[in-house]
């Protein structure tokens, strides 16, 4: 039997530990200001649990889901800037099929629901194809990931505009509402979808050799190729997966407000997803990655946003406030701080082992 030795020093050095500490600190501040921040009630009107902590998990769903793919892409020493645009495109495609101005709102209009499954499948398929295009440009053409995905970042939103003719559609089609506003086991559906996605990606990368191959390609693509890893295929799969997950996030987002918004859906999502990955302890230079850390990173980002809304930070100060918290989190995780803190865990510091 494997038996992990309890090692305080290595725990203190782990970036995830510090991400968790940061999250707990923010929550502690919330608790001090308003103890009822933590109250969770059952809401009979919706059949769901109702509380700020539920909101945080619920609203972090989009970024968590996208960041699962982004973690792998960053572990490959790449980055994917197109995720936000794909979110907008996915939402636009879904609403394109859903134009359903029901009589409830007295506006008889386009009545063009196709088989509902298409509403889900088409956006996901289109996003996956565009992800494969990203992967193709990077692995076969040899473009820099940041450039290749920048192309789609810029034109993806344009595609979304074309799909809906620059318009914002609203739908009332109830099966579609389930994705973003439905519930399962008293939890909002986005949380359930997130759990499923995180579990699926974790199993895929950790129970197969895929995760190790990703890390290997991220550290040294040439050496990986020489040792028989098809790095091009790994890159294709990671970018396609990220795009596919962006498509899911787009569907959730569209379902939450039952409409599309090609201008605003997914704005800055690439930045939030990258930030979630970095806070979670994955190095931008590629190599080792941590999916659990990414989940915590995403939750931290959403906790900050909820904090701002909940405690009514004046809107002019919102951006500065967010930046301040994120700087604190990153500093808390930085090498010098962790080194220093790890000494607290060590019984005795060996002479000469002190780093600057």
């Amino acid at each position, binding site marked *: 039997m494997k038996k992990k030795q309890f090692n305080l020093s290595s725990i203190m050095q782990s970036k995830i530990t510090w991400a968790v500490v940061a999250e707990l600190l923010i929550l502690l501040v919330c608790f001090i200001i308003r103890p009822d921040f933590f109250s969770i009630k059952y809401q009979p*009107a919706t059949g769901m649990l*109702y509380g700020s902590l539920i909101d945080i998990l619920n609203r972090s769903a989009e970024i968590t889901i996208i960041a699962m793919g982004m973690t792998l892409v960053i572990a490959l020493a790449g980055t994917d800037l197109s995720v936000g645009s794909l979110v907008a495109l996915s939402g636009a495609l879904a609403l394109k099929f859903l134009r359903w101005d029901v009589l409830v709102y007295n*506006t008889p209009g386009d009545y063009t629901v196709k088989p509902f499954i298409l509403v889900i499948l088409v956006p996901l398929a289109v996003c996956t194809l565009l992800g494969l295009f990203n992967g193709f440009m990077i692995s076969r053409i040899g473009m820099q990931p940041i450039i290749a995905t920048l192309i789609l970042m810029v034109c993806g939103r344009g595609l979304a*505009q074309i799909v809906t003719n620059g318009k914002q559609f609203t739908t009332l089609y109830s099966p579609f509402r389930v994705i973003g*506003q439905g519930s399962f086991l008293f939890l909002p559906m986005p949380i359930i979808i997130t759990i499923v996605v995180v579990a699926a990606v974790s199993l895929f990368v950790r129970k197969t050799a895929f995760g190790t191959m990703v890390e290997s390609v991220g550290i040294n693509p040439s050496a990986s190729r020489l040792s028989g890893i098809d790095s091009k295929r790994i890159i294709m799969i990671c970018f396609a997966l990220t795009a596919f997950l962006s498509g899911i996030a787009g569907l959730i987002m569209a379902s939450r*407000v039952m*409409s599309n918004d090609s201008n605003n859906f997914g704005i800055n999502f690439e930045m939030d997803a990258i930030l979630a990955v970095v806070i979670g302890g994955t190095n931008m230079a590629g190599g080792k990655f941590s999916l659990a850390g990414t989940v915590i990173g995403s939750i931290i980002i959403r906790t900050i946003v909820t904090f701002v*809304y909940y405690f*009514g930070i004046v*809107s002019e100060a919102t951006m500065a406030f967010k930046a301040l918290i994120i700087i604190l989190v990153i500093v808390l995780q930085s090498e010098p701080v962790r080194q220093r803190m790890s000494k607290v865990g060590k019984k005795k510091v060996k002479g000469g082992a002190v780093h600057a």
Partner: protein
Amino acid sequence: MLIEGPVKTMKKILALAIVLVMIASLSVAAYADDVKVAFSQIGQESDWRTANTDSIKGTIEAHDGWTLIYDDAQQKQENQIKALRNFITQGVDYILFTGVVETGWDEVLAEVNEAEIPLILIDRMPDCADKIDYVAAFGGDFVEEGRRQVAWAGEYLKSIGRGDEEVAVAIMEGTTGSGAQVGRTEGNLAALKEYPNMKLVAQQSGNFTRTEGQAVMEAWLKSVDKIDVLIVQNDDMGLGAIDAIKAAGLVPGKDIIIVGCDSVKAAFEAIVAGEMNATIECTPLYGPFVEKTIEDLEAGKTFEKTILHPEEGVYDCVGGIDLGTVTSVLAADVIDSRVY
């Protein structure tokens, strides 16, 4: 090189041909007694903007003897500056201009002045408007819109017998720093002083989007003890907030009175469905104004250097609420005639 000769000759012939074509087209343009109206639009950012473009384009194109030179700047200032310089080179008769940002227009608009092309400012005013010459200016009155939002809520409360009751008001602002947010907030806060029974309990930006409107409302419903009136600085945020209110087990439009702004079609639908209470109009239909102004200018009339505002309505769930400058209209009566 051997082929240099022929290539040079080719180039010369080509250049000559181009010059000839240009002269020809110039002379055609000179003979046709057209009024050339150039329009530099920001780009397509929202349904409001689309309706704005369609209105102006449609009016000018349909007018006898007028031709439109349209430029879509795709939200970029440099594109607009380029377009304005192109308009000068082409020697247009009028320039319609709305700037994507407020600052940085001094130089190019001074060039327009030097070229003595009449400049008509629409919608967003550049910050250098005092320093340059323009023949007419036309745009929404954001401060008045903000005032009307609060005044509507105050008068509506009076009409249902809650005029003396202390009510909690939440203001959801637009994108921080945008002209609409600054103006509407100013109007909101000023009008709140007129209604001492209305107390401001929360104020936050929802960035003009449905998604953020929903998230902000969701947090407020937990952090603020009671909200009676929700002022949203555009309709989209209100539409998002409606879902959050329902998720909290409350009835939008009844438990919480919602007053929006812009008057988009979806807001009318929500008002008719009883989930929203009122929307203050911010019309994008500038076409008729532009047409009349240019006709007047052609006839030799001049305008003062002041910003004119469009006539805008207030649409709500009851109708007949008197706001001093305007009386509200029942949304259900006009919903079918709304074009955007």
